[in-house]
């Protein structure tokens, strides 16, 4: 099983994001990564959490609209040009990135990035042949 991001619809109301983060902390759920894509009127909150399924059912019970989206976590060399190298490889392979964002914290000289791409299978193969590592959910402490 790969990593699943929880995507939540955010109407741009002050406090809605605060509401979600306090729901998570009240339920002892850790956030591994967070990103918000937004327009002036609404947004999509993207979350990687320690317990995706439990989080989803808790948020649903609070009336949020959400979806579970498969994503891939990649270890990007934490050095100048590290990310550029990854992006170049993906462009060569004609893989479209829908969006990406960083995981909170870094380990042993590596930055972890979450990628959402149009062709996950090809993405994994391309990374493997280029010597880039994907990160399993266990490594990120996701149940």
């Amino acid at each position, binding site marked *: 099983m790969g990593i699943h991001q929880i995507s939540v619809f955010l109407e741009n109301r002050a406090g809605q994001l605060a509401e979600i983060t306090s729901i998570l902390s009240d339920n002892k759920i850790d956030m591994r990564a967070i990103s918000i894509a937004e327009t002036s009127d609404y947004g*999509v909150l993207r979350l990687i959490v320690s317990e995706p399924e439990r989080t989803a059912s808790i948020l649903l019970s609070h009336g949020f609209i*959400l*979806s579970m989206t498969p994503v891939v976590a990649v270890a990007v060399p934490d050095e100048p040009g590290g990310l550029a190298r990854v992006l170049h490889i993906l462009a060569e392979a004609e893989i479209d990135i829908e969006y990406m964002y960083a995981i909170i914290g870094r380990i042993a000289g590596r930055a972890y990035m979450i990628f959402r791409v149009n062709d996950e299978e090809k993405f994994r193969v391309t990374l493997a042949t280029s010597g880039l590592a994907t990160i399993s959910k266990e490594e990120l402490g996701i149940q």
Partner: protein
Amino acid sequence: MERYYQPEIECASREQILRWQNERLVKQVQHVWDSVPYYRKKMEEKGVTPADIKGVEDLHKLPFLTKDDLREAYPYGLLGKPLKDCVRIQSTSGTTGKRVVAFYTQHDIDLWEDCCARAIVAAGGTDEDVCHVSYGYGLFTGGPGLNGGSHKVGCLTLPMSSGNTDRQLQFMVDLGSTILCCTPSYAAYLAECIHERGIQSKIKLKAGIFGAEAWSEEMRQDIQSKLGIKAYDIYGLTETSGPGVAFECSAQTGMHINEDHFIAEIIDPNTGEVLPEGSKGELVFTSITKEAFPLLRYRTRDICVLTREKCPCGRTHVKMSKPMGRSDDMLIIKGVNVFPSQIETVLLEQGYPANYQIIVDRVNNSDTLEVQVEMTPENFSDSLAHITDMEKSLVGALKAMLGIYAKVKLVAPKTIARSEGKAVRVIDKRKI
């Protein structure tokens, strides 16, 4: 070839129609003045007497009647004949409060049935036809009206009334019904049942006359193709007799109003001012031949457009469009008439829930329109681009329908209050 029930009337010259209207209006105003104190008082308040009304050009001088008047005058206040001359009542439920009760003399019923007969013949009906009437019978005008019209045409009339679909279909098959009269939604339901049971080949229907509720052109196409018939619209209201006030011809581009019995006007629902032909506004009817319930300038609250353009069917009576909404719901935004029902249609077509809110405001002396609609699990995506595309397509569809820009605001689920009433759907901050 187009056939008519009363060709000398239905295809009369415009001059002839106007002569009838002038003559009958003058007589009718005198009749009302003499026998309906309720309306006479309204005329006196406006300073109008029968002598002021010399023809259709003076119609605008008369006061309006509204549903409130009917409620206030319930049950006998608008009666134009002694009860001993009346032979029937029909009734309709209002959205609030008391029912509307309309009275008929035998003469009134006769003319009403003529109107329905015109509709049946326009739909291709002859004395060879089997006319299957699935409108409700009883207080509702649908069943009795079409039943009477069908007799006049000489069709074999099946007074089915509504409900009991098994029996409807059995009679339709066994007796070979060729013309179906019912509400469009019931016609659509019967069409579904016929397909489910696979009995299309046993159905002999060729035409349907569907009215008493709003229906769209898409619904017409759907019914026509499913039943293999031509589906005709018919319009009427209990206050003016019942179905048959206006009916569709083979052109299917609007309903001919029976102008020898009714004078139609289009008014601005806010000012009451009469609008020129082709304008969208509230439909007002004056009954010029009814004896027992002679309503003058009755405001229907239906919003539509009239046209006197020459109709290919040969009929010369004015045509009305399908009602586009109700005047009580109408909003005027940037000078354009906007109906919540139009917005609702677009939302449903675009896959949004019918739960929405319309917010009208005035910013820098310019009206603004915002439509708030709830995000649904089906419409939600993790891709912001997908959501903005959906939003753009909704804005485009609203612009195409309304003619003005409406801002769309996608809101979190359950943030718009659920309500039975329509009033809550519109928040007009301009009035505050």
